[in-house]
């Protein structure tokens, strides 16, 4: 037993600052005015990080916040030499660090898996369960936005509208949709067509201008009916919403997630839509086959537009400028033309000039 200069001890039960002496023996004894406040086994003692010169100790058997601060240099060295595992608590061990890194990597991988497989899977199952009435509501919202983008620019000569309705009726009959979609032609040079959730199909004048036959337009419209049948909008919406939620919340740090979200959407969106486009093409081929017409002209139209626009700048193609492979696929599904064209020459001429 030897008396050392005063050290400071907090017992973790009260905030009292005990000025203590340390007895170095079988155990480390903390003594105040001859009374032993605590005695710690050497292998229970851990060092804690502390600013300044003092050595701050605690013991794993002591109350959580018990602290012993030693400032005497000799005593510090003495204690350090007697404690076999002094550093264990103050720093995470290498294996603990590795475990943490592994945990984070695992988390990243599982989030990536969730984004890549999980969310599209869930979306494909959730979308069909959403009532049509809800889908129509979403469509109304989107429709209001279309109205803003193309204000007052719909076309409709009487003969052209009649021809278009004839075409749509024939296609819809075979489309297996639980509701009747509507079709509107918009005055715009962009060669495009799109469907809104709930069954509003828009055909842009630019596409009509570049089409050479009714079958080309029929194929495109049948393709849009395919999107409606598969409820691709809802799937995409559910998938995007889920992606935004997962990415946004997990990766955090305020707007940093915004950029990440954008990138993820672009990457996942492309892969996802390649599949949905191909599915819609299959529906188009199926509908055309039931009408005994070939789906190939649609593929030719898309390819023609893609070539003239040097690289898929239109909605139908934009996610995958791979019209050649789509055309090949459509040719495989082709059952040939065994019926007269879907529109007469007069009707086709009227449709081509629907915008006057």
């Amino acid at each position: 037993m030897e008396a050392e200069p005063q050290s400071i001890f907090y017992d973790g039960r009260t905030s009292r600052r005990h000025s203590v002496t340390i007895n170095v023996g079988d155990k480390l004894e903390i003594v105040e005015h001859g009374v032993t406040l605590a005695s710690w086994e050497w292998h229970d003692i851990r060092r804690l990080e502390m600013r300044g010169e003092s050595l701050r100790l605690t013991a794993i058997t002591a109350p959580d916040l018990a602290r012993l601060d030693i400032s005497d240099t000799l005593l510090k060295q003495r204690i350090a030499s007697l404690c076999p595992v002094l550093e264990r608590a103050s720093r995470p061990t290498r294996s603990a660090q590795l475990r943490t890194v592994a945990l984070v990597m695992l988390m990243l991988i599982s989030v990536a898996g969730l984004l890549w497989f999980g969310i599209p899977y869930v979306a494909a199952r959730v979308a069909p369960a959403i009532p049509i009435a809800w889908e129509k509501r979403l469509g109304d919202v989107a429709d209001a936005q279309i109205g803003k983008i193309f204000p007052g620019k719909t076309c409709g000569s009487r003969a052209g509208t009649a021809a278009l309705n004839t075409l749509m009726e024939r296609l819809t009959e075979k489309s297996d949709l639980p509701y009747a979609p509507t079709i509107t032609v918009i005055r715009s040079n962009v060669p495009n067509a799109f469907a809104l959730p709930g069954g509003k199909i828009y055909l842009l004048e630019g596409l009509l201008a570049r089409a050479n036959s009714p079958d080309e337009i029929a194929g495109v419209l049948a393709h849009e009916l395919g999107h409606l049948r598969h409820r691709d909008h809802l799937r995409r919406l559910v998938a995007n919403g889920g992606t935004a939620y997962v990415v946004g919340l997990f990766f955090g740090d305020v707007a940093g997630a915004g950029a990440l979200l954008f990138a993820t959407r672009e990457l996942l969106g492309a892969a996802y839509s390649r599949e949905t486009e191909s599915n819609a093409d299959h529906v188009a081929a199926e509908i055309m086959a039931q009408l005994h017409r070939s789906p190939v002209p649609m593929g030719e139209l898309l390819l023609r537009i893609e070539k003239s626009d040097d690289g898929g700048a239109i909605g139908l193609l934009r996610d995958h400028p791979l019209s050649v492979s789509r055309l090949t696929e459509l040719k495989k599904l082709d059952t040939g033309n065994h019926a007269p064209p879907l529109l007469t020459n007069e009707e086709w001429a009227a449709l081509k000039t629907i915008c006057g």
Partner: protein
Amino acid sequence: MTIAAATDFGSPPATPRDSPVEFAGDRRAFRQLVVRGAFAELLTLGFYRFWLATATRRVLWSSTAVDGEPFEYHGTARELFLGLVFAVAILAPFYLLNFLLGVEAERQKTFASLPLVLAFVLFRQFAIYRARRYRLHRTSWRGIRFGMTGSGWKYAAIAAMRGGLNGLTLGAALPWSQAALERYKMNHTTFGELEGRFEGTGGELFKRGWWLWALMFFAPLAFLLLTATGTKNGFAAASILLITVVGAPFWYATFKAIEWKWWLEGLRIGGMSVSSNLSPRALIGTYWKVAGFLILIFVVAIIVAIAGTYGMTLAGFSMPKAGSKGSIPLPFLVVWGATYLLALLGFGVVFRIYLLRRVWQIVSDSATVHHVEQADDVAARPGSASALGEGFADSLDLFGF
């Protein structure tokens, strides 16, 4: 042991003692910590933020001492991370509801989503309260933990009501609102068995800062009047605009300094109180530095983005023609995204160095704790708090309410 305690240095009550709050932080080490942290955040796609927040707190807490004894922070990154995971799971249905109501509101062009926005405002206040609770429970001094009781929902209700009042009075009620919120927080704050209080009053804060409120209220009014009355007053109008907008760091820093001093002087824990010699000008330099760095980062980011876009064009990638509906090629998105992320990380570093550490240091150094002898013999009280509140706060921050 109790006998020994009773015979300890002299007999209680001890003589009154004051102690300055001492901050002994290493500026360079902190800068290194946050810069490295920012890169780690980039590499881990943001996951590192839990570790960075914890490391930052540990440094700040342990650098700050009262009566020669530093504070200790006991929180862990793992707690924060799990808190977020639970928050994400719990919040998911709310976000779904939010989305559905949003669609409905858009369709009907009504304010159908307003109640939901209000619910999120409430929830955010709840999260703020619970996050404070978590941090206090993970803070100790002299081997005793701080703690916090009270109800997060009650606090949220008070905060929402007060926020409404602030809006209705165009900010005039702010001092009283701040006082009410601080009262609720401090009345439920404990250090061991000592109870906290808040004795700052709204009137006192108003007395110190009313001129700032008047400036922010009347300057835009004067500007509008001057510009409305004609072009003659162009110079006067422009100078008012200059004073309020360009001078914003001045006014905000002054307001924050006044508020900090008022807050410190209102704190009570047991018989302890705090005084502060913080000058209203004390934070102006710091806020100007923040403004300067933010502008610098912004400008650099724009230059980098432009240069990167040009570089990509040279490398053979081209942007879709104007007017066509094409999508932007991925390389451009990558360049812009990377610039954006780096700029954000830069903002984060500036924020942590100046608004966190520097303000912390200035405010701490200004403070003196009186009757610190009252903390000489305080018993601990049991209790703990989860990091869920902080998880909520973290997840909500993202949506920038």
